[in-house]
């Protein structure tokens, strides 16, 4: 019936190292990012362990290196590459109905640049770690001793280049390589969100490159960009840095929103509510995201009233986000909600936790309140509710959702639920107390602290151990299930986007025949088609 072409088994090098297949590159991104997730998580546990006692467990210098490495690894080597490298790479060509990315070799290059950037960060663990925080504000970062800062700068450059190449690939693929009939109004919402994110990466990353390059020049080549005694200005660095790093927060959350927009309608068995509102709110966030950066600098030497326009834009950017939240809730309304592991992460895990980060964002956006809360643990709580309660919950929703597509097998459900509950409870226990000590005035980035804050810090540390345990269980589950999991068909969830129309794992060129798209992936479900497609599932 079908002609079977015998492909000789290829070596590991040919199969993976030399591959230009977007799916394999996506998997390589994902596995590498999970490896760095363990490294970044280990540093987080060291940070939290230090804070078990108000006197600090480690010396201050080591502590400073730990929190610097934690944030650097998590931001640049885990969340951004996981979302834009792993998920976007694997899914965008499949979801738009293309055989690969527009520039497959460039795609491989962007992975290998990321890999080298990651190795550079790892090498700094041998030759001396950066200790300036991931923000690397001068003049401190200029005086920071040892090669750690230089490794940091090099790694940012390499990873930034990888990011820009990846962004170009996604932009061109979405604009030029959609299958016939894949109109903008039928484009899956995950693709919408990654397209906006790719534009943000393309426009924002050069500012970061400028910031760290000038840092390097000041450190080694005698320039005085940030030396105030010679007419330089350290605040200039902060402007450049946040011109990238605030959009970076949206780079870390928009594709995650995209994952949620795919997961919820499938398990509610309902068309997504407000498709256009969700798509356009991503565009609005992408645009507004470039006008809020100075809210990181309300107390950094700006005139206080200069913060007002940034306060207004930072409050307004909460509107498109709340539009999404209400649309996701409305998608669940009168649906037929199934409590699968990805749905638990997406609903209770993500919506339930992320909104706390969204709300605390409006608090710190208000200039007068930020005068009190800036650089306290309240900000640490806020960003972790956004990045852990937000991005990581979505990543876990996405990994479990597409796991059967990647492997053709199902994860172990019991372990899946256990991992979810450890993550959900661990998130609240770790990060909620940080709001409380922050309100009371505990500064961030301190290795030892006033004794009155000890109780809540110990609670947070216990929470972080719960998260550590959850991570081990989740990764163990994924590893054993990839090999021994129950075999499932090509579409176990009755999902509608194009990747579910091909086999699991998909064939090398995705589609034997380029599909012709005639309908939205968010069309309503009919009971009879569920029965009919059961055979294939």
């Amino acid at each position: 019936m079908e002609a079977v072409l015998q492909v000789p088994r290829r070596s590991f090098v040919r199969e993976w190292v030399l591959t230009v297949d977007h799916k394999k590159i996506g998997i390589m991104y994902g596995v590498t990012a999970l490896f760095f997730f363990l490294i970044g998580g280990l540093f987080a546990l060291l940070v939290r362990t230090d804070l078990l006692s108000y006197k600090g467990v480690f010396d201050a210098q080591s502590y400073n290196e730990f929190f610097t490495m934690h944030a650097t690894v998590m931001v640049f080597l885990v969340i951004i590459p996981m979302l834009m490298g792993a998920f976007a790479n694997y899914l965008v060509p499949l979801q738009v109905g293309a055989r690969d990315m527009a520039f497959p070799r460039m795609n491989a290059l962007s992975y290998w640049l990321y890999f080298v950037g990651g190795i550079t960060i790892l090498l700094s663990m041998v030759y001396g770690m950066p200790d300036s925080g991931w923000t690397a504000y001068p003049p401190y970062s200029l005086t920071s001793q040892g090669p750690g800062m230089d490794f940091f700068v090099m790694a940012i450059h390499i990873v930034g280049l990888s990011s820009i190449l990846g962004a170009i690939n996604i932009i061109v693929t979405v604009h030029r390589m959609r299958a016939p009939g894949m109109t903008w109004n039928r484009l899956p919402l995950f693709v919408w969100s990654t397209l906006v994110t790719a534009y943000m990466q393309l426009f924002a990353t050069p500012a970061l490159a400028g910031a760290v390059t000038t840092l390097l020049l000041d450190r080694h080549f005698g320039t005085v960009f940030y030396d105030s005694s010679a007419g330089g200005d350290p605040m200039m660095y902060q402007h450049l840095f946040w011109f990238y790093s605030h959009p970076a927060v949206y780079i870390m959350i928009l594709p995650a929103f995209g994952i949620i927009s795919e997961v919820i309608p499938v398990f509610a068995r309902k068309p997504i509510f407000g498709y256009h509102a969700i798509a356009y709110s991503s565009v609005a966030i992408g645009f507004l995201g470039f006008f809020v950066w100075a809210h990181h600098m309300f107390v950094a030497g700006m005139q206080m009233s200069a913060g007002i326009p940034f306060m207004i834009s930072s409050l307004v950017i909460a509107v498109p986000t709340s539009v999404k939240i209400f649309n996701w809730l409305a998608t669940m309304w009168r649906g037929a909600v199934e409590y699968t592991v990805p749905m638990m992460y997406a609903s209770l895990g993500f919506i339930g936790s992320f909104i706390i980060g969204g709300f605390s964002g409006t608090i710190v956006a208000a200039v007068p309140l930020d005068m009190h809360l800036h650089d306290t643990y309240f900000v640490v709580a806020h960003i972790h509710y956004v990045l852990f309660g937000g991005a990581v919950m979505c990543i876990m929703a996405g990994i479990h959702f597409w796991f059967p597509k990647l492997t053709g097998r199902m994860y172990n459900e019991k372990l899946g639920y256990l991992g979810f509950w450890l993550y959900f409870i661990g998130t609240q226990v770790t990060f909620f107390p940080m709001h409380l000590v922050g309100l009371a005035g505990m500064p961030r980035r301190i290795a030892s602290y006033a004794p009155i804050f000890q109780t809540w810090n110990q609670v947070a540390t216990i929470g972080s151990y719960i998260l550590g345990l959850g991570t081990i269980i989740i990764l163990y589950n994924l590893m054993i299930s990839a090999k021994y999991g129950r075999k499932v068909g090509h579409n176990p969830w009755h999902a509608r986007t194009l990747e579910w129309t091909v086999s699991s794992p998909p064939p090398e060129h995705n589609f034997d025949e380029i599909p012709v798209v005639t309908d939205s992936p968010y069309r309503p479900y009919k009971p009879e088609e569920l029965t009919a497609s059961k055979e294939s599932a």
Partner: protein
Amino acid sequence: MSSSSWLPVQLTSMAHNVDLLFYIMLGIITFFFVLVEVLLITFLIRYRRSAKNQVGVNVHGNNVLETVWTLIPALILVFMGAYSVRYVYEAQNPPAKPLVIEVIGHEWFWEFKYPNGLDTHNDLRIPAGQNVLFDIHSADVIHGFYIPEARIQQDALPGRITQFWVNVDAKDVGKQFQVPCDQFCGAGHPIMVGQMTVMSPDDFNTWMQTELQKQQAKS
């Protein structure tokens, strides 16, 4: 709640205003937080799948609802912003003829210079009931001058002067507060904590004079 986990005491009337703003915003967000969580959990339970082939209703959206949940948050957020603006100018514009104390951040201690030439390390004393203006800068890297009880902070930068002012209530005379550095500045960052003592104006003047004499006698 113990003192370790809620807003610190209010040292100034501005701290009182900032807290009021905080409680108003907290009230609004608590309402929406409860709303979203209740809807989420209600929908999860009420609309859970009970039959294998059950499907949801065929609804694609509703423009009236979209408009409502765009406009209402927008209005509330703009209200929060507009309400905050007043306090920004209040904090920014120092009152006439304040007592000026120069604050200099060092790795890793605070230096305070008083109008009569007195110079102290980590020992900040301020008179109650008077307008005190801090002229803040740094001798080396960036530090953060933060008085939690006054709900205000400014970074201390090299080559740039930042300012804020306080007027401490008379009820707090004799009390001591910590003035931490809250902008990361290296290995000594956590121990960079000044001690702030609130004094009556008379005591403050006496202290300033006697300390200055002591300092001059030493040198």
